[in-house]
């Protein structure tokens, strides 16, 4: 199957520092890829780079091939047709992404007018249909309401409805449930799962929440300090993480199903882009680190089960004990 989205060597540079570095991954039609990482890992900047929304003075390089076209070489006008059309995005905080002075219906209608040429009663009817699709009760009345009249969960549904307005083949969702309560998060994840099945769209889910990843994603890319350190099918990755950072993240989580006396915390903290250690960026925090780890950046090397990890333990090196 040809990839819907194919990313090669994606790098986002601010001044002298890379906040996203040499990312390569692909997304198949209908697939859910989770990009997971802690704050400062570069995951949200990756999402913005895919949409060509990186704020100045950031410089994006590499290739982002979506449905055969390299997005990084499109004109701004061509890119506007892609954005919100075949490729749409949902952000974490719906209150700041919705315009407070326009009704929900008018904001959905804007996308419908731009991409599908709908206006007037046709646009309104389609907006009501979309609100129904995202399970907003009483959609015909809600379409005339303003964002502040809606709860957090309802606003996120409206954002998803807007993103779906032009039947995207790829939805990029940046922490779509992070601001929501657990029971509402469960509703939104169920909705996304159903929509993905019904509409056959692919999803790139950007999140820090490993529980959400495990619940929703087919494949996972784990980011640390601007780079992908591990990638693979979700189930295999959670069962037997190949990179010490992934392993450390999973071990440091308190679990719902069991009680531990102590958590296996990862010592230290994520290095900022201006103070990266030499070689493997995780080495200073890694329990397995040896001298060769600081010599060079380990490449993403294949591991059993369709996975890859950027750790010299998997790259054919023999590390002396």
């Amino acid at each position: 199957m040809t990839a819907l989205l194919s990313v090669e060597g994606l790098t986002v540079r601010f001044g002298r520092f890379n906040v996203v570095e040499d990312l390569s991954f692909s997304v198949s039609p209908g697939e859910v890829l989770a990009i997971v990482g802690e704050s400062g890992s570069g995951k949200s900047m990756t999402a913005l780079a895919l949409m060509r929304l990186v704020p100045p003075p950031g410089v994006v390089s590499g290739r982002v091939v979506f449905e055969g076209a390299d997005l990084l070489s499109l004109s701004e006008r061509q890119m506007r047709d892609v954005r919100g059309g075949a490729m749409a995005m949902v952000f974490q905080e719906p209150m700041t992404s919705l315009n407070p002075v326009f009704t929900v219906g008018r904001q959905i209608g804007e996308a419908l007018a731009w991409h599908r040429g709908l206006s007037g009663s046709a646009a309104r009817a389609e907006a009501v249909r979309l609100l129904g699709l995202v399970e907003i009760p009483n959609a015909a009345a809600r379409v005339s309401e303003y964002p502040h009249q809606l709860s957090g969960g309802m606003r996120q549904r409206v954002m998803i409805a807007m993103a779906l307005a032009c039947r995207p083949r790829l939805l990029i969702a940046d922490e779509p449930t992070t601001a929501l309560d657990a029971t509402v998060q469960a509703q939104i994840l169920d909705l996304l799962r159903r929509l993905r099945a019904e509409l056959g769209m692919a999803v790139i889910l950007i999140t820090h929440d490993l529980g959400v990843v495990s619940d929703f994603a087919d494949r996972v890319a784990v980011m640390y300090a601007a780079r992908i350190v591990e990638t693979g099918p979700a189930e295999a990755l959670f069962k037997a993480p190949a990179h010490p950072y992934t392993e450390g993240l999973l071990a440091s989580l308190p679990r719902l199903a069991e009680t531990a006396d102590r958590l296996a915390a990862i010592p230290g903290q994520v290095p900022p882009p201006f103070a990266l250690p030499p070689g493997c960026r995780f080495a200073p925090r890694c329990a397995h680190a040896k001298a060769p780890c600081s010599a060079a950046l380990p490449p993403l090397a294949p591991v059993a089960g369709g996975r890859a990890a950027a750790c010299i333990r998997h790259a054919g090196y023999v590390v002396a004990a």
Partner: protein
Amino acid sequence: MTGPLLSVRGLVKHFRPRARLLGAEARPVRAVDGIDLDVEAAGTLGLVGESGCGKSTTGRLVLRLIEADAGTIRFEGEDIRAATPARLRALRRRMQIVFQDPFSSLDPRMTVAEILAEPFVVHGIGGAAERARQVRRLLDAVGLAAHHAARHPHEFSGGQRQRIGIARALALEPSLIVADEPVSALDVSIQAQILNLMKDLQAARGLAFLFISHNLAVVRHMADRVAVMYLGVVVEEAPREALFSAPLHPYTQALLSAVPDPGAARRERIVLTGEIPRPDDPPSGCRFRTRCPIAVARCAAEVPALRELAPAHRVACHLAGPAPG
């Protein structure tokens, strides 16, 4: 002293919005609506619930950072609500708070040494030399180095700032710390460091925690008893193992099933319909009935009382039966 370190009975706090210029009189927000809680010395009571359930308000009421409308709060045997301002100041040496956001709860203009010495200054304890010694002792207790004392909060990462917040709370040797979402703003790898630190400090100093969080897994890790709040009331309270392995209230069951556990097999969830009702207009009878998958007519008519259905396991549900086995 016998009995619990902190004992709360019938605690009520209604926030009254200012009257609107036109239109109907605004209804009070019933943030906390008659709850009972006990925190044992050196123990941890986890207070869990979703936004707006009243858990943070409860934490602030207990310390009298805001004034309750009704109820009693006994701390180390003394009635907090009846305490004079002078007496309250003395009591506050023994009960402290750690906030969620280490960014906004530390004064950016003060050095860490000044932040940590402030409690001693406020309470007139020790001279300059003694305070400097205490600052070093506190930094050491939370895993920071002596040279950190001269720095300002903005020079620290989120995890380190939370360590400073914890050090400040420890300054006057409290017996109780109210921890309000202490790790919610932190990344997972840092969260584990702070939770381990809090457990170590508890073991070394015999601290009690009222540990407030929306994160069930974190509460499970920290608490020995757990109270679940929904719209201003406690709907279930139980020892940790009982609450997590055999929850009896339909809300607790749904809440537990809503949280995906990384690596666990995907399972059928109890997905609740609707959202949390507004706290200024809670449903009649059982407040959870509008979202409850098993509600019956009686739930709208009658407020369910907390009933003890298993040892030390109380549930406010007309339909809940004793735990199986």
